[in-house]
């Protein structure tokens, strides 16, 4: 029936198309490939020009520490980005709610990016420093204890589970390989760094009467959340509080 589906009278309109493309599958395939390539090339390649690279970089943002990398990996594993965006838009109400709008450079070490496309919960791009460490601990254990009416599921297993330091070393090494400037990526340095930052957080949790260990997953998660947007906010506010 293939041929029967096309009205005969119409064939004359497509004489060129018929002869040039429809009779030759190879030519058709090449033409299609060209047609679908142009837009992507025009939009994506300019991201790699010198000027663009500069605009996406800034020295007021530092790479994620090993503990923050571990926390970020857990954030990805649990799919937090499916409910929480990390992008404050340059609109008055957003800036009142969340803080200065997000600049490109603030994402420069984000692999993968975690902008998100939904706000089933609030934006988290500037959540760092908004609450004490103990708040995050309680909130992850039982979201409704800190936020009545929340629809977020509890993540109590983060309290019992421990991250694997070798795994974090592998992550840091891979991130260094794609260009993140880490001073040291050997297992010993990563482990001591994890321990140092972890100890700070369990110290702050202890003041609220919570006992945790430096390699608990919840500690890594808190480290990640508490750094989100902090450097950017400090820089932007110092620059004259431009919002």
């Amino acid at each position, binding site marked *: 029936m293939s041929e029967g589906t096309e009205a005969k009278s119409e*064939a004359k309109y497509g004489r060129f198309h018929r002869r040039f493309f429809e009779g030759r599958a190879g030519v058709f*395939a090449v033409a299609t490939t060209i047609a*679908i390539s*142009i837009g992507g090339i025009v939009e994506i390649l300019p991201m790699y020009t010198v000027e663009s690279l500069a605009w996406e970089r800034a020295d007021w943002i530092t790479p994620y520490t090993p503990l923050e990398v571990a926390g970020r990996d857990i954030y990805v*594993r649990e799919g937090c980005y499916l409910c929480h965006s990390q992008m404050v838009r340059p609109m008055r109400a957003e800036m009142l709610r969340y803080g200065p709008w997000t600049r490109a450079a603030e994402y420069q070490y984000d692999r993968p990016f975690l902008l998100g496309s939904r706000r089933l919960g609030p934006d988290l791009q500037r959540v760092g420093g908004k609450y004490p460490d103990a708040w995050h601990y309680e909130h992850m254990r039982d979201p409704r204890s800190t936020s009545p009416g929340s629809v977020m599921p509890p993540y109590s297993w983060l309290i019992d589970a421990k991250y694997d330091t070798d795994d974090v070393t*592998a992550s840091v090494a891979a991130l260094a390989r794609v260009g993140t400037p880490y001073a040291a990526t050997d297992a010993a340095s990563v482990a001591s760094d994890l321990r140092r930052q972890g100890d700070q957080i369990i110290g702050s949790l202890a003041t609220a009467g919570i006992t945790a260990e430096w390699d608990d997953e919840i500690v890594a998660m808190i480290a990640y959340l508490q750094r989100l947007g902090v450097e950017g906010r400090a820089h932007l506010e110092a620059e004259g509080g431009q919002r």
Partner: protein
Amino acid sequence: MERVATGTGAGVSETTVYDDQIVKMFFTATTVWALVGMLVGVIIALQLAWWPANLGLPWTTFGRLRPLHTNAVIFAFAGNVCFTGIYHSTQRLLKTRMYSDRLSRVHFWGWQSIIVAAAITLPLGMTQSKEYAELIWPIDVAITLVWVAFGVNFFGTLARRKVKHLYVAIWFYMSFVITIAVLHIVNSLVIPATLFRSYPIYAGLTDALVQWWYGHNAVGFFLTTPFLGLMYYYLPRAAQRPVYSYRLSIVHFWGLVFLYIWAGPHHLLYSALPDWAQTVGMVFSIMLLAPSWGGMLNGLLTLRGAWDRVRTDPILKFMVVAVSFYGMSTFEGPMMSIRAVNSLAHYTNWVIGHVHSGALGWVGMISFGMMYWMIQDIWKRKLAHPSWATHHFWLATIGIVLYTVAMWAAGLMEGLQWRALNDAGRLAHPIFLDITTRLEPFLWLRLLGGTLYLIGAIMMAVNFWQTIRGPERPADAAAVPAAA
């Protein structure tokens, strides 16, 4: 165009010429994955209305099941639908058997294994986090290999075709095979850290741009162009009418494949992406309305003179509603790409309403229509319960309306309340949760709509099962038209 005397209903020898076994395999897989994917959809809809449904287990939380839903409905359900239709119609359009039966099997079993691997890894939290590209890098490698097998098989079949001119459905299939390969490879370039984890070679906003170039075109070339190909083959066959306009199909094909690729940045409006990129994305999205509606009109006008049959034939009902929802979501999409509109819609349930008017309305309904038609053709049986098909149609239609209306209402409400300021210039609703909790009734309504849609799909599966198990019945005229 010239008619070939030995049409498709050539009779006894048909199955020896065409490989219909592979079509049956993909057909069966489609039916199973449809139920799985939609069931997970209903579960996550319940979780959003009632959080205890997360069950307190890591493997069953929303954050892990949502990617399972999207992967199951897009790659398992929609993917297998496309393969079913492509393997069935390509052989008939080109009057030749698939190039290699072995490659067909590699494609089938490879694809199903990938889906099973996805269903295991996603609940375990193994993900790359990019929407619709979550699967970990070893699975990405497998996808590439299976896609190459499919591509070789498809183009091999084109090379040994017995019909010189390629029918419009084939053009759309071709764009599907080529574009998905390009998108998948470019968006999956990563450096592995372990067997289960990797980091993209792109960082920050560049990574986001590459992802949404991929993401929007996954919609364009996984959920749109192959389905337009299916429409161009199965709608005329079910309606027994020729395609309305050949010229229109040329213009809208090239318009669609050229314009779609540019529209990705409409997912990053108001981000720190350079203004020129955002503007280009917006302008091309708006232009995309024209070729999209070209396809819709060509589909609807094909039914000219057959509208009386739409009233009685559930297959045509499914197809008409599908094409109408295609028109609706491709009108809504360009509107949502306008910056001012997007500032309201972005991040809200409105986007979810848009997604599902395309997914349930267009992808789902055209698939159901095609499958009800095809089962009678390849299994040579009449439907066991023809009236159930009509019930399915109404359940699905009511389900979509409830789903989308609930999401539009919820989306508008939250969008407006997030931005509302009081007279003093402060936030009118400073507490985020106050807004969220007001959405609850709409989330239950959406759950109801989704459940009706799922019940319809279950009825379809039972109907198929009993049709296939039942005695061979002489198919009716619509199933095997003589020469046209």
